[in-house]
């Protein structure tokens, strides 16, 4: 069978190789190959001139909701949404029902992922049932495919447990992803504490609820020498601690999500539950500092924190609504806005969305070198589109970015040599 795919005349952007040139990219039998002189049939060619050809995007922070909440999303629909958004791999958080705190759930996720539209790297729980009391079995989960551990959605309130998690995960070569939040400070809060929460009469979550935990976890990473990754950084204060830690050589990496560099707490407007997430949308000063940190290297990754919820959780009183928004299908467009705004350049965007997450998780990807698995994304930076409930691939539609013009989109996604998303015609049609 002829499995050759030639992406013709694209702008090949491969930050790992320092490559940025107009070229063809050849893919055969699931791998990237060196172009040769053989004659190529038209049906094997896809014209991608005017588009960027980049290593497949990796979202290291998603919630696929399976097992347990399949009415919100499944591994099949979530990875299809990932492919539609240009992602070839996702790391899925363990707060499923039941929690992924052992090999049974890890194996279930891996089995279901064999037919998925993207590579799936499960994240195991830090503690059993994410209760924050006892360590989960990292060795066994790693043997079945977890790429990191996290109690995401819940903070690890015990500093002692966090210390032990870092030490034990280090022994198994797993990064610890921290959901940095002091639950006593954030208790009852449902949005950023500030001008808007006061105007709306809603209980607030102070920026300090994140910063004090970032500070604690950095101290524990320094103590243990273990790799700490800070999830969904939302505040300027956290960035300051992070910058200092990196300067001192603490083994810490960090991500933010597109909504934190795009929106502020003003998006809550008239109690819009699609602007409710945890950590919450912050102030304009925080937003600007997040953008600066993406540019100066303090932040390593853009991850979406894709968190599907149905109308059951979102069409209700703001305080009672679930936290989280979907993000897979809008991330490329929001990331490209940073390039258009000259906050970062194209290369940096690909580092943030592909190269760095691969490195942090220790998974394949982030490279277009010959011989590598063919995980490739083609981006049309000028594609104009509008997401609606009907056009979304995700099973849920809880997004503040629906019904508004977006620019820049993945037009072709290739995962291990297989086309998982295509808005283009091949040259033959």
């Amino acid at each position, binding site marked *: 069978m002829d499995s050759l795919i030639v992406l013709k005349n694209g702008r090949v952007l491969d930050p790992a190789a320092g490559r940025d040139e107009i070229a063809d990219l050849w893919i055969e039998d699931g791998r990237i190959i060196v172009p040769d002189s053989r004659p190529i049939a038209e049906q094997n060619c896809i014209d991608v001139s005017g588009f960027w050809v980049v290593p497949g995007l990796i979202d290291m922070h998603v919630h696929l909701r399976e097992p347990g909440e399949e009415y919100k999303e499944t591994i099949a629909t979530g990875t299809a949404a990932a492919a539609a958004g240009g992602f070839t791999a996702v790391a899925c958080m363990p707060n499923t029902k039941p929690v992924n705190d052992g090999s049974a759930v890890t194996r279930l996720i891996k089995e279901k992922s064999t037919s998925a539209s993207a590579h799936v790297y499960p994240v195991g729980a830090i503690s059993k049932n994410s209760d924050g009391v006892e360590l989960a079995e990292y060795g066994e989960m790693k043997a079945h495919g977890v790429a990191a551990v996290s109690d995401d959605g819940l903070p690890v309130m015990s500093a002692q447990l966090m210390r032990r998690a870092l030490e034990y995960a280090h022994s198994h070569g797993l990064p610890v992803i921290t959901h940095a939040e002091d639950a006593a400070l954030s*208790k009852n809060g449902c949005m950023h*504490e*500030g*001008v808007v*929460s*006061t*105007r*709306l*009469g*809603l*209980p*607030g979550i*102070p920026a300090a609820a994140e910063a004090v935990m970032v500070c604690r976890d950095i101290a524990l990473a320094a103590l243990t020498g273990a790799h700490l990754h800070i999830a969904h950084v939302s505040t300027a204060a956290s960035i300051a601690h992070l910058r200092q830690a990196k300067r001192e050589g603490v083994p810490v990496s960090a991500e933010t999500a597109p909504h934190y560099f795009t929106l502020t707490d003003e998006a809550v407007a*008239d*109690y819009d539950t699609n602007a409710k997430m945890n950590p919450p949308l912050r102030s304009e000063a925080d937003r600007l500092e997040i953008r600066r940190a993406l540019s100066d290297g303090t932040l390593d990754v853009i991850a979406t924190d894709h968190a599907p919820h149905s*109308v*059951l*959780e979102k*069409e*209700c*009183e*703001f*305080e*009672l*609504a679930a936290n989280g928004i979907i993000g897979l299908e809008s991330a490329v467009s929001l990331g490209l806005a940073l390039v258009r705004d000259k906050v970062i350049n194209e290369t940096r965007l690909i580092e943030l969305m592909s190269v760095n997450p691969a490195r942090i998780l220790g998974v394949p990807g982030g490279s277009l070198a010959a011989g590598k698995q063919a995980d490739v994304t083609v981006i049309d930076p000028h594609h104009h589109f509008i997401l609606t409930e009907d056009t979304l691939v995700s099973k849920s539609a809880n997004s503040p970015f629906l019904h508004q013009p977006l620019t820049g989109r993945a037009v072709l996604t290739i995962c291990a040599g297989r086309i998982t998303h295509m808005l283009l015609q091949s040259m033959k049609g």
Partner: protein
Amino acid sequence: MTEPSIFIHKHILGIKELSPQDIHHIITTARSFREISNRPIKKVPTLRGKTVVNLFLEPSTRTRLSFEIAAKRMSADTFNLSGSSSSTRKGETLIDTARNIQAMNPDVIIMRHGRSGAPHLLGRYVDCSIINAGDGAHEHPSQALLDAMTILDHKQSLAGLKIAIVGDIAHSRVAHSNIFSFTKLGAQVCLAGPATFMPADITSLGAHVCTSVGEAVTGADVVMALRIQIERQHDPLIPSLREYAVHYGINRALLKLAKPDVLVMHPGPINRGVEMNPDVADGPWSVILDQVTNGVAVRMALLYLVLGGDKSA
């Protein structure tokens, strides 16, 4: 006020959405209704055939009674539906409740709810008018309107007045609505209370935060004390009611710092001896019971105006 302004609001969700003209319009209308409550037969046919549903999902006795009396004096038919919004039942319940009420075709829903923004949510699902009778720590517009009306019974205008509000500002929808209302009408609002009672960036609403009660009360034209919610002590905001009374309670000695013709107000119910001494609450400065009387008139006016009273008059 003689300006021929037209009242265009379908809902009364908060003072935030009202203009100074709207506020004066409501108060002027309320004044014209006030004498109805002094008649031997306290009923006019103005809202005959109109259906008013009191949807109170948080306990309330006074506000509900006041709205019910207001509606009945206007000859509207009133129905009460109460329940609890504090349970963890999902919001579809509220929306389903709203749709069920809507199916019975009421003209107005008067809503009290423990969560901020709940009336705004309801407004997206029903066709009738909604009057917010208190939502979470957000707004209590009819209370702010009756407070402004009571002050205007004694003062020419709110412009330039110094109004002190003392107590738990953070958890008080009355304080929020009054800050919006008083500042829109040109008064200077001075807040006092321990920092645990102050919401973040409250000055962004136009209020001034004082370092002591004395500073807030000095030279004040109006002193309003808020009820201290004893139930809220799971979050340690103050060490004890006793200590609060000593440092923040309104007493006679403190009132000497205010203007001689100061008005003392309280949205009720009073914890006597905590936020306000009995001799102050019952003293010559007190207009606390006038607030209650005006409450009925303001609520008659709100019902009349949202039901398009101006257009049919």
